[in-house]
């Protein structure tokens, strides 16, 4: 601990200044490249130069200010509700460990719901107003907060918990006095990722018929071929997201006292078979809970049968007893089209995030240049970047793959950075004493320490990739399951919509479980002390 503490004291004075300097240079270079690219592409109505963006912001200051206030309010409400729910669920899971698998399972099911299909349903459910935007912002954040939080609540030396037990106190005391404190850095990491996500969620929510906001203006600007305004909107969204990301980082460092501490948590007890059984029981109870909520929701909110489909209806659609399998076959055909984009995009995003994180750690000072661009990429709304990506990479598969990769890449980068820096200080000190080369430190100390964070990101990347690819298909390519869901909403084909929601959710959840299974194997081999 002491070595780490000294390092932390020394770091801000030199490294922060260096990071800031490199960051400034990086941003300036990016702006110049942007301006030149825009001039080169002039007349194509795809990219606006920074100077034109500034002019557009000044010209439309009032309009943009009101839109920002509207979207900012819904994003903030969604951020508070979504993260509040994550904290409440995390606390419940920690206080009552038996519920954890049910909670994470149910949370996973909800996050896997494809928003292209759920957004119009939210409008039906919540009626007029900001309801859908707030709900989508909340849905975009709660999961990426809940998962690191649960890791954090567990990341407690077992001796501390023993102490609580010796004092004759129960899990609740342990939660409040020990676990809550230990989880704060992890909560902070989740909240940081949540800020850009909330903004994006609120903007997409506005597509369901909101009266005002940045999302509404984005559609309008794209349709009016107002490229300057389109990029002005994207710039505002990106700047706000970066500011929120930075601000939460500063608050977190003040409150939680730095990066997540190094803790070698004891491996989870229990044999392989017992663990498998617990997982199956957890998954089963989560599915039952989801079905109860689904069916109960239809009854409680008295949703019109024109829109609502019960689990029995969906079983009929999937087995083909309802319409001879016509809907099911259409869904499977569309899914096959989607798979071509989503799998390579997902893998590319993971690799890019990992590679960049390693680069940042190996080459000190690159953080300042890399992070702003990474956050900007993640927070610029898909509707805006799509024309440019399409122009650069074509309307074919490469564009959709790139959009998916961008969505997966950012959370992976953040998680890997946190992970790489979590290498135990003592180990690093020993290696330093022996003058171990940087690449060996990376390979033997940092990467094993990073693996749990990487896999957490890889798991969360599955629903993120599905979300990205369906949004890209809906807004740009018009193919695959994303376009089919949007089309069936306008054709009132709620059989297809319900079938799509269930099938996409199941596939996402299975993909998540698959990554989890790989994780268990890899961790058992390379980082057994961390396979908590």
């Amino acid at each position, binding site marked *: 601990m002491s070595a780490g503490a000294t390092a932390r004291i020394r770091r801000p004075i030199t490294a922060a200044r260096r990071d800031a300097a490199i960051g400034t240079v990086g941003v300036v270079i990016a702006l110049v490249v942007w301006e030149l690219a825009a001039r080169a592409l002039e007349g194509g109505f795809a990219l606006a130069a920074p100077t034109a963006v500034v002019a557009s912001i000044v010209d439309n200051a009032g309009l943009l200010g*009101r839109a920002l206030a509207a979207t900012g309010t819904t994003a903030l409400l969604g951020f508070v509700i979504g993260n509040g729910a994550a904290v409440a669920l995390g606390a419940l899971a920690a206080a009552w460990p038996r519920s954890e698998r049910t909670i994470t399972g149910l949370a996973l099911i909800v996050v896997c719901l494809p928003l292209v299909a759920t957004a119009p349903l939210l409008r039906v459910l919540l009626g007029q107003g900001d309801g859908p935007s707030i709900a989508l912002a909340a849905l975009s954040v709660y999961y990426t907060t809940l998962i690191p939080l649960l890791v954090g609540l567990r990341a407690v030396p077992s001796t501390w918990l023993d102490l609580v037990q010796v004092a004759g106190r129960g899990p609740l005391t342990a939660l409040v006095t020990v676990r809550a404190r230990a989880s704060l850095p992890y909560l902070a990491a989740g909240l940081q990722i949540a800020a850009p996500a909330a903004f994006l969620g609120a903007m997409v929510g506005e597509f369901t018929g909101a009266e005002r906001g940045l999302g509404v203006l984005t559609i309008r600007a794209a349709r009016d071929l107002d490229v300057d305004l389109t990029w002005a909107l994207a710039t505002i969204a990106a700047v706000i997201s970066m500011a929120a990301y930075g601000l939460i980082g500063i608050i977190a460092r003040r409150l939680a006292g730095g990066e997540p501490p190094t803790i070698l948590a004891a491996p989870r007890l229990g044999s392989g078979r017992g663990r498998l059984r617990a997982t199956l029981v957890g998954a089963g109870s989560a599915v039952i809970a989801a079905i109860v909520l689904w069916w109960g929701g239809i009854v409680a909110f008295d949703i019109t049968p024109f829109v609502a489909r019960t689990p029995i209806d969906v079983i009929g659609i999937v087995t083909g007893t309802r319409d001879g399998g016509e809907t099911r076959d259409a869904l499977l055909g569309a899914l096959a089209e989607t798979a071509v984009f989503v799998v390579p995009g997902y893998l590319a995003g993971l690799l890019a995030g990992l590679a960049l994180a390693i680069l940042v750690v190996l080459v000190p000072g690159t953080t300042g240049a890399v992070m702003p661009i990474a956050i900007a990429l993640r927070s610029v709304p898909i509707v805006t970047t799509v024309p440019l990506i399409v122009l650069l990479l074509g309307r074919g598969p490469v564009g959709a793959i790139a959009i998916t990769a961008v969505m997966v890449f950012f959370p992976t980068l953040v998680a890997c950075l946190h992970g790489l820096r979590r290498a135990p200080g003592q180990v690093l000190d020993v290696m330093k004493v022996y003058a171990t080369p940087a690449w060996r430190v990376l390979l033997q100390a940092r990467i094993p320490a990073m693996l749990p964070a990487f896999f957490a990101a890889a798991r969360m990347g599955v629903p993120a990739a599905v979300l990205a690819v369906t949004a890209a298909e809906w807004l740009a390519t018009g193919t695959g399951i994303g376009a089919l869901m949007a089309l069936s909403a306008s054709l009132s084909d709620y059989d297809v919509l319900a079938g799509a929601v269930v099938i996409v959710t199941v596939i996402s959840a299975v993909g998540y479980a698959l990554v989890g299974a790989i994780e268990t194997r890899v961790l058992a081999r390379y980082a057994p002390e961390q396979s908590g």
Partner: protein
Amino acid sequence: MAERRTLSRRTLIGAGIFGAVGIGAATAVGVGVANRGGGAGSAALQLSWLHSVQFGGSYIALDRGYWSEAGLDVSLLQGGPNAPVEPPVVSGQALVGVSAVDFAAAAVAEGATFKIIGAAMQNNPTVIASLPDNPVNEPGDLLGKRIGMALANVPALETLCTLNNIDVNEIEIVPTQYTAQPLTSGEVDCLLCWETDLPVAMEVQGVESVTMLMADFGFTLQSQTYIATEESLRDRRDEVVAMMAGEVRGWEEYRRDTDAAAALSVEMFPDAGLDLETQRLQAARQVPLMFSELTDEIGFGFWNDDVIASNIETLALLGQTVTPDLWDTSILEEVHGS
């Protein structure tokens, strides 16, 4: 020091949990209230897209009090790219919805009890837009071209080809959405879009374009049709009549001065980012689609049996089987006093 910080954190986390639960409960209650809908004498009109002069007649009716004079408090509900019109009308959140014949027919096939009670656009506004140096003036020009369109509209293109004896396989379909940018950047040769939408955007940006109205080549399909459920037509008939009477007056006023309608749209929705010049052009362009010799004779929004027959024919080519029962003339008859 350390002790105090722990305490504040504890308080913080506790407050966070209670806050989350509280907000969740409040949201649930809010949802319940929102779903109840308005009281007597108030009704909502669900629009099919974002606010713009596309609905200028409705804005005039609201602004000049055509509805409030009749004792009806109307709210206009905006649509959007991911906001289907039919569910709010089915659930009763909206009394009347602005849809299109094909979407209404599809909803009826799925069990909705809609009737089409009026048609703001007598003719379909779908065009093939192209650039003057590589124009599409008639369906035959489409052969060998790349067309940018939402895949949702492929049945419409196929129907146009069938009506004009063209092989649709000789046209390369490129999926695009929401913007004319693929045409201006040369990615495609033409776009399937609305006469009043992307061509106007290009004109404002100084890009000249050529449009071919699909309705001129047999693609007969009413658009911006008003839909209401059979239950509403039975139980809230007076309100539906008042709603449509206001619409008719509003659109007749719109026709008299489209520039005023454009100005009103910009003024009423300052947050919608509407550009006055774009709105003026759009307002003028949609007049020929909404008014014809037939409507001069029988009134705005109305049709005759021939129109219905051609609509049914086009729908059949689109794969939808409908009967004249889909249309209900009784509301407009009451409005026009015939």
